[in-house]
């Protein structure tokens, strides 16, 4: 017996916001995946729009690479505006 593939589900919760990952589900095809997502993830009016993506199509960074990927940003504090003090007298910046 062939198993139904796994789908990742993304929901737009409000007008203007981006779709956000909410979970996954199994379905035989994309259309059914959207139907199922409607039933599973938007029963309490959580959504305005649904995206489904085959889980097998998601490429992810490896947890083991966490340090190599993200550590270099730690010592670049000048990328944050608060690194540069703004004098009291100068408002709005």
């Amino acid at each position: 017996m062939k198993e139904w593939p796994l789908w990742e589900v993304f929901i737009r919760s409000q007008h203007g916001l981006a779709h956000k990952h909410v979970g996954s589900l199994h379905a035989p095809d994309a259309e059914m995946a959207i139907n199922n997502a409607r039933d599973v993830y938007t029963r309490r009016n959580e959504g305005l729009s649904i995206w489904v993506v085959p889980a097998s199509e998601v490429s992810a960074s490896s947890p083991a690479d966490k340090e190599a990927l993200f550590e270099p940003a730690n010592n670049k504090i000048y990328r944050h505006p608060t690194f540069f003090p703004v004098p009291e007298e100068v408002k709005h910046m």
Partner: protein
Amino acid sequence: MYAQMVDTGVKRVQGLDEMSAEERAFQERIDAGIKIEAKDWMPEGYRRTLIRQISQHAHSEIVGQLPEGNWVTRAPSLKRKAILLAKIQDEAGHGLYLYSAAETLGVTRDQVYADLLSGKVKYSSIFNYPTTNWADIGTVGWLVDGAAIMNQIPLCRCSYGPYSRAMVRVCKEESFHQRQGYDLVMTMARGTPEQKQMAQDALNRWWWPALMMFGPPDSDSVHSAQSMQWKIKILSNDELRQKFVDQTVPQAEYLGLTVPDPELKWNEDTGHYDFGEIDWEEFRQVVAGNGPCNRDRLRTRVKAWDDGAWFRDALLAHAEKKSERQVAAAKAA
């Protein structure tokens, strides 16, 4: 501003009663403040205008790296060099967010980029001015990014979802750009008399081009009226320019620098600064391709694109080879 004088293709703005049912529903949605998303129905004019505006905006981010790139190897300290690199890196990212937003409208990045390289689509006039002294780098952050923020903050509320979300991200990062610029100018304004003079010289050269970024007065422009009805333009060019002047003049005063406008004066009655006439002939010349750096900027972009062709091809070839090997390995297994 980052997108100047965007053509909407209309001769006159339609009223609700003149629209088709589809167009009316679309307009009512915009009036109600509901965002339009990529897969929603939209009038062709809205789609085409947004592609023009967003791609012009994206091109400005990309070409905007060039005046700053001029100083990377000449930054006076490692700290300033790292900051400048981080800023330029952000600009590339902003270009990418914006090209991606444009792509949701049914064009490809390579298509809109080709229009930049052929000179068909413009980028902001401001990037056709040279950065001749180190204080220019601070002044660009302070004034040019300051003007960009002025324009981009209202665009976070624009009607097109992907564009508005890109703007939210851009604005967050842009705040660093403006502050590092002001910090740099402040350091020079408090330095030796020669350094202060460099800061003044930079302000003298960038002030008027920064005011031109907002574009010519557009209160009676049909394109502006149409873009406002579509909520892809929120404030008029003159409103934005006035806000910018009101905000920036006290910042210059705090630094002890003089804004190069003898007519600049606080107006007690209006609660705004009055300022002198902008040289619109200069603006027209720069937009027409005759600014100090137009040819150089475009030549640099074209060369980067041509020189990078082998690299783009090689990465694609490598990806194809890898996927063929994976398929072959799967067959063998």
